[in-house]
């Protein structure tokens, strides 16, 4: 009898129990793997991405972070200009010399700012627009007696000089353009003084003028002149100054300069 190896081995078959046991095991393992994969995609989506995509995502994050940082830096004022007539406005200037913030401190200040977007413009253009708006709102007198106060707010002397020149140029251009004349008063205050003024709800420029008046007339209070126009405060300062000069002359001393705080002020009458 010839026994075939093949037919003998054919009798070896997988037992039903073995097959069903394996089937149960495989279902469990493959389902577990599927869940693990899904979780992996949800939790670690970035790391399961192809390498190039991961690099691109990292670069995008860096770019967005860098752009956000640059934008935040651009939007941060490093110095300010206080513009006071009877309206009070403060402009924030960034390190590039661009206006990034404009704030009206009183009702008239808000009135001249109304409808003007000067963000991104240089200081000369911004002041030009504000003075033109002040003219349109009737805040510049026809007789040229209005005093416009331009006060730089910075601890940097060079920046202060630049701000004052740029602002004065803008103001002169606007007055000329509108056929008006006014007296321009320029000064500088430190950033720490700015904080004190803001706490009182005043622009540093106006508080600076009130303090000058106060130094000549100690009885004067901030509240008294808080809502006064710059023109009125300056008239009061001049008047006090004249009285001081008379007193000095009475004492037989000739003194042409003001020793009471307005010596540093640079006043200029602008006529059309």
């Amino acid at each position, binding site marked *: 009898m*010839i*026994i075939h*190896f093949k037919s003998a081995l054919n009798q070896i078959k*997988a037992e039903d129990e*073995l*097959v069903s046991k394996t089937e149960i095991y495989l*279902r469990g393992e493959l389902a577990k793997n599927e869940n693990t994969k899904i979780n992996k995609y949800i939790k670690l989506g970035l790391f399961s991405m192809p390498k190039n995509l991961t690099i691109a995502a990292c670069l995008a994050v860096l770019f967005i972070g860098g752009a956000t940082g640059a934008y935040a830096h651009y939007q941060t004022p490093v110095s300010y200009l206080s513009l006071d007539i009877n309206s009070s406005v403060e402009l924030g200037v960034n390190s590039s010399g661009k206006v990034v913030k404009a704030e009206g401190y009183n009702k008239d200040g808000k009135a001249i700012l109304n409808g003007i977007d000067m963000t991104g413009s240089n200081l000369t253009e911004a002041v030009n627009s504000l003075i033109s708006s002040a003219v349109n709102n009737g805040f510049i007198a026809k007789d040229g007696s209005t005093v416009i106060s331009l006060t730089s707010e910075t601890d940097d002397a060079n920046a202060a000089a630049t701000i004052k020149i740029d602002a004065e140029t803008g103001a002169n251009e606007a007055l000329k353009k509108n056929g008006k004349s006014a007296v321009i008063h320029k000064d500088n205050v430190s950033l720490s003084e700015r904080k004190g003024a803001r706490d009182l709800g005043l622009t540093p420029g106006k508080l600076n003028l009130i303090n000058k008046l106060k130094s000549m007339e100690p009885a004067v209070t901030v509240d008294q002149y808080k809502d006064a126009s710059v023109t009125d405060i300056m008239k009061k300062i001049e008047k006090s100054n004249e009285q001081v000069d008379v007193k000095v002359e009475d004492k037989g001393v000739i003194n042409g300069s003001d020793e009471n705080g307005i010596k540093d002020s640079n006043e200029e009458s602008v006529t059309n």
Partner: protein
Amino acid sequence: MEQKPFDINSSISSALQKYSDMVRRICFLYLHNSADVDDVFQEVFLKLLQNKTPFESAEHEKAWLIRVTINKCKDILKSFWRKNIDSIENMELPFEEKSENELLQVVLSLPEKYKEVIYLYYYEDYSVPEMAKVLNKSENTLYSHLYRARALIKKQLGGKEDDYSF
């Protein structure tokens, strides 16, 4: 090309239906206890179902599975546990015919390297070049193995080799 969604249940059923007997036969040649057979079944079919490289053909898939199963069986035999502890199970061959039993006992007693060539050559009808690919061995080596395996079987059958046919 649109890829068909992966259906776990149908893939498992299909793979087991197609290859479970073949894997069981290879296990039969190498392993002597059911726990080892269970392990090989689970690992081999899991590997097949998790394989992401597409097979060129059904033959390629079958050859791949034979190779994986043989390797897995060898791994188990090489393990420390297997080398030092004998199985408590006495293998009972399921053949009614005494002669079938005798022939299979002879084949099972062969060294592993001879068992695999006998199985592939006589049962799966692989040619020596095909076996060389599956087993990753040179053709000359396999010709030698085949020759020596036949000689061993002949010797063990003690002159009754003409009663048997492969």
